[in-house]
């Protein structure tokens, strides 16, 4: 089910990441709005994770405690709300330690699940809170657009190449132009 729009083109300058973090649905302030980006940069990850890696709610508001197993582990290692340094330190003590954490006790460490190095094709991450023992868990990153020509085929799944149809039409138009030009020359 779809809920209200969360950002608008008219506020493009704020960007969707900021919008997601700071004011979607005109909701109260989020728990720790910078934390998804801190996790992304510290692990590092190829995408910005959803709030649900730590919270039960997709949009946890200020004062809501993170109760997912991954967050409990970080809290045990010094994580407090609204303190980026405490999150970085907690990640280094757990996910990035010499003996990396594995809260769901499957065959993949939390670092591997978050950086996606063992994620199945077409998926950037797996969920560190859900065991992959019986199959890969869900991606914790919502789909995000990537910019630049190198981002053209980051999703390998099949899709319709309408550009080839249009290129064909363009080639037809160019060919028609050449043919008519040649015909005009012959007639003159």
């Amino acid at each position, binding site marked *: *089910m*779809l*809920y*209200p*729009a*969360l*950002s*608008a*083109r*008219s506020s*493009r*300058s*704020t*960007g*969707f*990441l*900021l*919008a*997601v973090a700071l004011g*979607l*649905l*005109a909701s109260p302030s989020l728990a720790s709005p910078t934390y998804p*980006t801190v996790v992304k940069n510290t692990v590092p990850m190829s995408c910005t994770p*959803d*709030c*649900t890696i730590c919270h*039960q*709610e*997709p*949009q946890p508001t200020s004062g809501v405690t993170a109760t997912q197993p991954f967050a409990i582990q970080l809290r045990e290692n010094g994580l407090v709300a609204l303190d980026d340094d405490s999150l970085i330190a907690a990640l280094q003590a757990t996910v990035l330690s010499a003996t990396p954490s594995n809260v769901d006790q499957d065959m993949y460490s939390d670092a591997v699940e978050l950086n996606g190095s063992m994620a199945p094709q077409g998926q950037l991450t797996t969920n560190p809170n859900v065991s992959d023992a019986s199959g890969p868990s*869900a991606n914790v990153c*919502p*789909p*995000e*657009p*990537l*910019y*630049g*020509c*190198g*981002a*053209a*085929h*980051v*999703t390998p799944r099949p*899709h319709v190449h*309408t*550009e080839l*149809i*249009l*290129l064909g*039409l*363009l080639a037809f*138009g*160019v060919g*028609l*132009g050449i043919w008519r*030009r040649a015909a005009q020359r012959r007639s003159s």
Partner: protein
Amino acid sequence: MFQAMNTNRRVREIALPQGDAARGEHSPRGRSGRGRVILSWPGLALLMFAFTVVSTWSGEASAYTWMIRHSYSACSTCHADPSGGELLTQYGRVTADMILRMQYAKRKPDAKEPSPGVLWGLWTPPDALLLGGSYRNLSVIRPSQAGSPYTFIPVMQGDLYGQLRLGIFRMGGSVGIGRSRPGSTNGRLAQVTTNQDGYNLVSRSHYIGVDLGKEKKWMLRGGRLNQPFGLRIPEHNAWVREATRTDRESDQQHGLALSYVSEKLRGEFMAIAGNYQVGPDAFRERGYSMFLEGIAGTSFASGVSSKVTYAEYDLYERTINESTNSIEPESDTLRQAHGIFGRWAPAKSLVMMAEVDALFRVNADAGYVAFGQVDYEPVVGLHFILTGELQDQGRYVTSTTPAEPGRGNPQFGGWLSVDWFFFKQMEMRVDAMLRQDEPFTMLAQLHLYL
């Protein structure tokens, strides 16, 4: 009052070209036109102030996109793009020098014609080759912004343009640099390189094309192109351009476009294949965009626009998926925009433009966006522009939150701008923007075009 002031400032008259693409008068040679006022340096500051309270208008002036005041109702006379914008033709360069910028001295009847060359006339490329470029910086002042209210962007735009024409065939495009920042989408849609935070190579357009028909009124192009829709205005952040996703900043799309330009009618239809500088494929919008404009006389034109696109994932709209309890892009987004627009020059110093579009999006109420602008050019090269905006993009049909301006309720906006073409291929512009539910913002930019 105005005329008297002009006399005191040694205002003189000058013969300037008049344009009408439909008549095929594309020679850079100047043609006789009605007289124009020019201004000497010493009177400029006083005159700029005085014009803000002057209620009459002069008989003569000139403009920019609003060149309809010179009977330039079509765009292909001065631009390589048949629907206008960016790369200038040689005729367009000469015209810009003679009637777009401020004139500081009387032009003698036997004066040498301005050079159509690039780099302020240093080099004139062969006729088959058009070259150009554009540099803009931007200062942003938001008094209510926490911390420093002032932001300076040294390179808002840094593009080079080119087009090579071989017989009926043409190929061209732009390449430049642009700064991408997380949290900002400006410029990102045109990225070539993939730096997500920093400077990137950008290409806003690139295409190949062919002229069709005996009189070359038709043109077929394929590549990344400006979307044909509504008024092709330079204010890329105007709501009519943002809500319809048709600005010239980076909203170009890859596709195939067929354009037509004649004396009384011009139009363009583009089949949109998607923006191939964005991925994954699910985020690409596909559909069509078009406009058709009729021209009445030499000073009035109006038209209709239509655009329909579909994307598996929307680039900007976000929703909560209850089944997975996660925030996701809005899926299966069908967007429609249909509207009318018009341009009217009741006097050479005055141009009025308006656009009204109806907006439709699946899962959202119908909305609208409107734009009105009055451009007053009391002396050549100096514009005072008043802009009004109105929008309601509609709110989600399942929304449980109260309606807000722009989403369920009308949102109003207004701009007051001064645009000064102070020298050959140089422009300074200041905009004061007041929009409902947005902080008061002042923009100042310097624009050099090669």
